[in-house]
């Protein structure tokens, strides 16, 4: 049998070598004369802690890794399309500046991913902004300072910033200056942030952290939105006192009418509920198929109302997941309990709703009303899964008995009650 591998075209070898950890790829240099530099022209370089032998001494690992990456870059020839470094050992190291300078000189790099250590954040050099062909930028634990003359990354499709130290207006300008941006993930900035997003081609948005305000000024094409919003208690209180007449729910969601998927956690439901109830919405979310809302406070009538408005503006909803926040205050006054009858459009049906999941259920009145409403208006429902919260104070049997009486629009609906 012959050697079938050594004479494969470089494009196939590239596909094989880039699927190996880079250390294994470099080791192929020893296989034969032909193999000496096959690794050196791969276009994707992915470095992580696996590149070097482990050690108890972080400094030793850092030094080995720096040596490894620097030597690899020096021996490499040809374009580099993807450069990734993921490690917690590199901290504030001047070599990172040189690597980025090297990449920016040929400026072929399309994907740049730097996930660094959390202790001391590296300030990335301004030559980063010379990488004109970037389509994908993913940064974690570093400092970013776009130069004033920076005109944007004209090819950037995907931007992810996690624990990145950067001024709010700098992020906003960066987002705005990347006209092709489709995918944006922002998480854990140093201070709580109020942010305005202008991204006319944005399709996927993920935000997690301490945001005081999120304004989607220009994101008409957004398909998927996922927000985990934390708020310091004093900020939350400040919002309650402010009482703007414009409900956040309207301000926020009506700007994204093509949404297909919406997920919100922590304070998100509360954030949406700030302001006056808008009444039935003038628009419907015809494309909204999936809604996931976690930590909704069912004792807060404003949050319940937002929930009601949201789901009754989503006629094509297919999957709905909701969990209750911790039960804190006693039940609402009786006259607020008929809001489901009062405020839901008459004869409302969820024509496509098939799956409902309710978790951390406490069996309180608004929760039961939601279950009743969903069961009664979902003719194609397949499963409704209910998991009680660990702090369930209400008698579970009582809740189950009540549940059994609810009219079910779908004869096929299975109600699955999950014990712990």
């Amino acid at each position: 049998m012959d050697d079938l591998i050594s004479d494969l075209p470089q494009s196939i070898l590239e596909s094989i070598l880039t699927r190996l950890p880079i250390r294994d790829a470099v080791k192929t240099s020893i296989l034969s004369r032909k193999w000496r530099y096959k690794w050196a022209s791969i276009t994707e370089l992915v470095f992580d802690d696996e590149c070097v032998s482990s050690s108890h001494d972080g400094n030793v690992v850092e030094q080995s890794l720096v040596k490894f990456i620097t030597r690899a870059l020096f021996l490499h020839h040809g374009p580099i399309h993807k450069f990734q470094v993921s490690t917690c050992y590199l901290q504030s190291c001047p070599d990172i500046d040189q690597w980025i300078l090297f990449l920016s000189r040929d400026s072929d790099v399309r994907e740049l991913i730097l996930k660094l250590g959390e202790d001391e954040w590296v300030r990335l050099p301004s030559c980063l902004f010379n990488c004109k062909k970037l389509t994908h930028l993913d940064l974690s634990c570093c400092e970013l300072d776009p130069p004033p003359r920076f005109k944007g990354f004209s090819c950037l499709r995907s931007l992810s910033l996690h624990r990145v130290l950067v001024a709010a207006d700098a992020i906003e300008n960066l987002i705005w200056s990347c006209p092709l941006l489709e995918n944006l993930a922002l998480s854990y900035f140093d201070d709580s942030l109020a942010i305005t997003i202008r991204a006319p081609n944005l399709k996927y948005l993920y935000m997690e952290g301490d945001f005081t305000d999120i304004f989607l000024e220009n994101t008409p094409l957004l398909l998927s939105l996922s927000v985990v919003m934390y708020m310091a208690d004093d900020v939350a209180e400040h919002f309650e006192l402010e009482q703007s007449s414009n409900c956040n729910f309207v301000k926020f969601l009506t700007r994204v009418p093509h949404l297909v998927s919406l997920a919100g956690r922590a304070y998100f439901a509360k954030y949406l509920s700030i302001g006056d109830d808008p009444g039935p919405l003038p628009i419907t979310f015809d494309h909204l198929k999936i809604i996931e809302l976690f930590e909704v406070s069912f004792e807060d009538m404003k949050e319940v109302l937002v929930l009601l408005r949201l789901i009754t503006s989503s006629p094509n909803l297919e999957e709905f997941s909701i969990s209750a926040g911790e039960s804190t205050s006693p039940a609402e006054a009786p006259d607020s309990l008929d809001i489901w009858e009062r405020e839901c459009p008459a004869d409302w049906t969820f024509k496509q709703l098939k799956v409902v999941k309710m978790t951390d259920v406490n069996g309180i009145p608004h929760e039961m009303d939601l279950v009743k409403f969903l069961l009664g208006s979902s003719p194609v429902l397949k499963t409704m899964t209910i998991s009680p919260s660990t702090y369930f104070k209400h008698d579970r049997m009582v809740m189950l008995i009540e549940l059994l009486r609810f009219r079910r629009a779908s004869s096929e609906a299975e109600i699955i009650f999950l014990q712990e």
Partner: protein
Amino acid sequence: MSSPPSASASSSPPPCPKKMITLRSSDGATFEIEETAALQSKTLENMIHENCASTLIPVPNITGEVLARVVEFCSKHAEAGVDDESLGAWDEEFVAVDHTTLFDYIRAANFLEIPTLLDLGCQTVADMIKGKTPDEIKKTFKITTACTPEEEEEVRGENQWAFE
């Protein structure tokens, strides 16, 4: 139930016959493949869209034995309703072949631009290389050393940082 109107041809159209494409291997064997399956190959997709696919398509680089299997692969991957797990298991079986055949698949996938098959083949080869010593790799792939000891020493020195 009333009988359908006799003159109308549009009340219930007959199911469309699946459009087939014929491929001819290097050794003259012909194989039919559904158009939907053929779309797995970018080369064939381009030809279909430019309407060159109506007659026989010669595939000069690929033997009948390999082409048959490639057609099987594309048809399987174009099938509706197959879950990821069973497709993965099917793929695993597909590449459980001797090296000659595996590399034939890879070359065929490269020529016909079938990304799914190319990825599968290359991943399989990568998995054979991963974690092996250079000697083991040479043995697995029948790579004969064409280096002198001096050359080998030079390469080891050059890449010592990767062997540490």
